[in-house]
């Protein structure tokens, strides 16, 4: 089945009079809300409230009073996309500008998509239900590559040509961001540009460029605007680069095809997080979402150096938000939102230099108010009794997850996750003796050099956890859940050269592990086992390390009905395998070539022209160290190991301690009449 572009497209304005015109807009028809046409469709779809908007914290600005208009998308369902920090931060930063407006759009479920096609309703924003095509910039944030098919749905539903090359001045600039934008090559045909790294300042710079270009009367149309963005050296415009291939299918080179764009595009780094205390007015959904809490990033970046972890590699250096700023953000965020859970987010929250004082200060400030604290990412070697007690002080214990990632000491050396089995047992027992009845342990399967034996050690570890927990608490009422994800090698990590394991091997290992866990029936009963099978990981691997030729596979999958690939009930492995088999042989490559093939040192990788700051020679050395089972320390506590980021990006580590403490809050009793919601 093919999905033709059935969305009626309003007549495109001609090139001299496009989105840039500052006078009376030729696209008045587009600016009208689609709500009257959308509303009658809503009783026919599941969870219609997700399309209604009107959340606390949502901003609707006068269309005509704005010069630069952004549509921001998280390409997954509303319930997943709304809590996304990145989108919320950029939404607020942009809407604080007087002449700029930003609205949000999310992936619509297939039931509504079908009705929208049948009734000619275009992709819309939830804030004012304006059609996405009417905006100047359509920014899409990718946390995972599995959102690519949803991008195509949104572009097509918006009435925008799928291919960037076919777009006119009447179409928005489609801009990719988020972690997956560090290799946007698989979607290079579909996006106009990509931004690497932190978005706070990048969106301001882009807004300024669009504003200036429009004020000048949009000289040179779309091409000129993209060129101005490319000249910043931090916005990647794929159309300005040509990719040449070798006869064997590998990339020969990626070079600019015009003289005035940079050879390499660099990531953005926002320094001094205290100067960017967002979100200040978090969105509070009316519909149910995956996270309902006030989330504050307590630091960005991580130098623990886990070799599989793309986030840790591409967000360096570590920049802490100070304890006092965190305290102030929590106070204002809770007052504004009414949330009763605070999430202290980062890549490894217990590593903040003042995490102890932060947790005890917050626990004290909110004692007796039913506000609970959670640390979503906690290293086993940084968790301790004090922290456990602060997290459980008001009686409600949020879930605890620890991630040893690898089952054996050997494999943990390979991935540089330096936690010992003793650390893990000690930590989990601490949690059990502090009242937690259940902890979750997270591992990966399919890691480089992994054997069956490495994975089977997970069973020993889980058995020992239960044994030690029973001994320490004298109770049999304790449980642990072993949760296993498939390893996917990611760009800009030491494992970017690694081969992936085949799905059959992964599935077999998981089967063996399950048997090993249940080999002892008494212990096995206390252990839950959750896993993902190997097939989705292989496709994620294709997309994460793919080049521009993979775009044709994405398009074929989408045409064959591929949607919501991050959802197991929607993902079809068969559809991806068949599309790859149809499309890739013409280029002399195949699915295995992208996934299970190990790359050598000199191969040009599709993202080599995109600069995350990491020195490629250092990454290669770290890959060799991984194979030699040699560990790498953290530069926060040991001398610099020359990963390259700080000198390349002119940045530095920003950590405490500041020595400051959180002061008790003066309790505010009595009714409040919040002004923000009554506007």
């Amino acid at each position, binding site marked *: 089945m093919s999905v033709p572009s059935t969305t009626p497209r309003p007549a495109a304005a001609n090139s001299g009079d496009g989105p840039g015109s500052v006078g009376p807009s030729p696209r008045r028809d587009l600016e009208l809300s689609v709500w009257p046409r959308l509303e009658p469709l809503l009783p026919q779809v599941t969870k*219609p409230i997700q399309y209604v908007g009107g*959340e*606390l914290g949502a901003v609707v600005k006068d269309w005509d009073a704005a010069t630069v208009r952004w549509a921001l998308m998280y390409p997954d369902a509303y319930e997943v996309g709304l809590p996304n920090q990145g989108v919320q931060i950029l939404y607020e930063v942009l809407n604080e500008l007087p002449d700029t407006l930003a609205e949000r759009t999310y992936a619509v479920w297939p039931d509504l998509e079908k009705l929208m096609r049948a009734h000619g309703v275009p992709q819309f924003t939830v804030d004012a239900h304006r059609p996405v095509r009417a905006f100047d910039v359509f920014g899409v944030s990718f946390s995972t590559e599995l959102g690519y098919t949803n991008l195509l749905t949104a572009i097509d539903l918006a009435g925008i040509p799928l291919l960037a090359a076919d777009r006119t001045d009447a179409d928005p600039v489609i801009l990719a961001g988020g972690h997956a934008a560090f290799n946007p090559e698989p979607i290079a045909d579909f996006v106009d540009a990509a931004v690497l790294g932190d978005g706070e300042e990048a969106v301001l710079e882009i807004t300024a460029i669009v504003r200036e270009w429009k004020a000048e009367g949009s000289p040179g149309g779309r091409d000129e605007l993209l060129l101005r963005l490319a000249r910043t050296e931090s916005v990647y415009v794929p159309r300005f680069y040509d990719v040449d291939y070798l006869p064997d299918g590998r990339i020969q080179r990626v070079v600019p095809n015009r003289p005035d764009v940079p050879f390499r595009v660099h990531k953005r780094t926002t320094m001094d997080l205290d100067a960017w205390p967002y979100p200040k007015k978090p969105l509070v959904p*009316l519909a149910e979402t995956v996270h309902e809490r006030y989330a504050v990033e307590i630091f960005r970046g991580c130098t623990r150096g886990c070799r599989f972890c793309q986030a840790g590699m591409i967000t360096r250096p570590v920049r802490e938000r100070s304890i006092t700023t965190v305290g102030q953000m929590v106070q204002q965020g809770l007052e504004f939102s009414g949330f009763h859970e605070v999430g202290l987010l980062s890549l490894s929250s217990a590593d903040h230099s003042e995490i102890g004082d932060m947790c005890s200060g917050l626990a004290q400030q909110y004692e007796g108010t*039913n506000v609970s604290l959670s640390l979503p990412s906690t290293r086993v070697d940084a968790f301790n009794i004090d922290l456990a007690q602060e997290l459980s002080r008001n009686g409600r214990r949020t879930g605890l997850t620890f991630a040893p990632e690898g089952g054996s000491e050997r494999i943990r050396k390979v991935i540089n996750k330096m936690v010992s089995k003793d650390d893990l047992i000690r930590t989990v027992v601490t949690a059990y003796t502090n009242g937690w009845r259940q902890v979750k342990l997270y591992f990966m399967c399919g890691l480089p050099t992994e054997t069956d034996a490495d994975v089977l050690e997970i069973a020993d570890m889980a058995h020992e956890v239960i044994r030690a927990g029973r001994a320490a608490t004298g109770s049999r009422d304790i449980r642990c859940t072993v949760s296993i994800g498939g390893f996917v090698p990611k760009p800009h990590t030491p494992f970017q050269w690694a081969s992936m394991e085949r799905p059959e091997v992964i599935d077999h290992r998981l089967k063996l592990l399950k048997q090993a866990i249940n080999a002892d029936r008494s212990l096995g009963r206390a252990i839950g086992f959750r896993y993902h099978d190997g097939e989705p990981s292989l496709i994620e691997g294709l997309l994460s390390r793919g080049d521009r030729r993979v775009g044709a596979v994405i398009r074929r999958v989408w045409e064959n009905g591929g949607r919501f690939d991050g959802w197991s009930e929607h993902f079809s492995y068969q559809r991806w395998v068949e599309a790859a088999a149809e499309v890739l042989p013409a280029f002399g490559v195949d699915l295995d070539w992208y996934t299970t093939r190990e790359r050598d040192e000199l191969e040009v990788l599709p993202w080599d022209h995109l600069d995350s700051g990491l020195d490629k020679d250092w990454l290669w050395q770290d890959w060799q160290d991984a194979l030699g089972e040699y560990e790498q320390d953290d530069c926060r506590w040991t001398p610099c190991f020359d990963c390259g980021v700080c000198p390349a990006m002119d940045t530095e580590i920003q950590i405490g301690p500041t020595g400051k403490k959180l002061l008790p809050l003066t309790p505010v009793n*009595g*009714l*409040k009449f919040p002004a923000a919601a009554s506007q």
Partner: protein
Amino acid sequence: MRRAGVPIAFSQGFTPHPKISYASAAPTGVASEAEYLEIGLREPVDPARLRGALDAALSPGLDVLDAVVAQGGSLADRIEASHWRIEMPQVEPAALDRAVAAFTAADEVLVERMTKQGRRTFDARAAVMRIDVAPPVATPSEAPDVPCAILELVVRQVIPSVRPDDVLSGLRVVADLEPPVSPRVTRLAQGTLTAQGAIVDPLDADRDGASIGER
């Protein structure tokens, strides 16, 4: 509640829940001008100030109109019937007239709906106390030449509940009435039924002689 600083009471237990109970909430996709809920408080508050604080804290379009101190008795017990208005764009009033006449004439109209227990068949007729075609009014969102039939319904609270969409299913069953676009349903009132079939505000019983803080 938290934004408005309401001193709400919590249930006891491992995961304490705020004491809020909704009486007969309108179904998804239906507008309402008359929803009721009961909240438990830790300490007395002035109902007028409580109303104002909650109204200020809620999103635009969610308005808190009144608050009274509960004088005992369950709110849910006082919800005996609902008054609904159903606008059916592109339906000729004469066609609706015929369907309503057929519905009224029937002793029983069996309809089907998916419930949490699976597909159920039940009577949509007996609970309907009043079903009238209202005189047409100008609806600003519709072009003037498009007809729009309007149905007014008073339905008793029964188990399983008979909702406006069940009555619409009933009109399909008895008269093949198939609205071309989704009807717009609004709950106008709900409350206690008088002997004459009028609906009385369920908070009336609390209003006389209410003294603040008594529960």
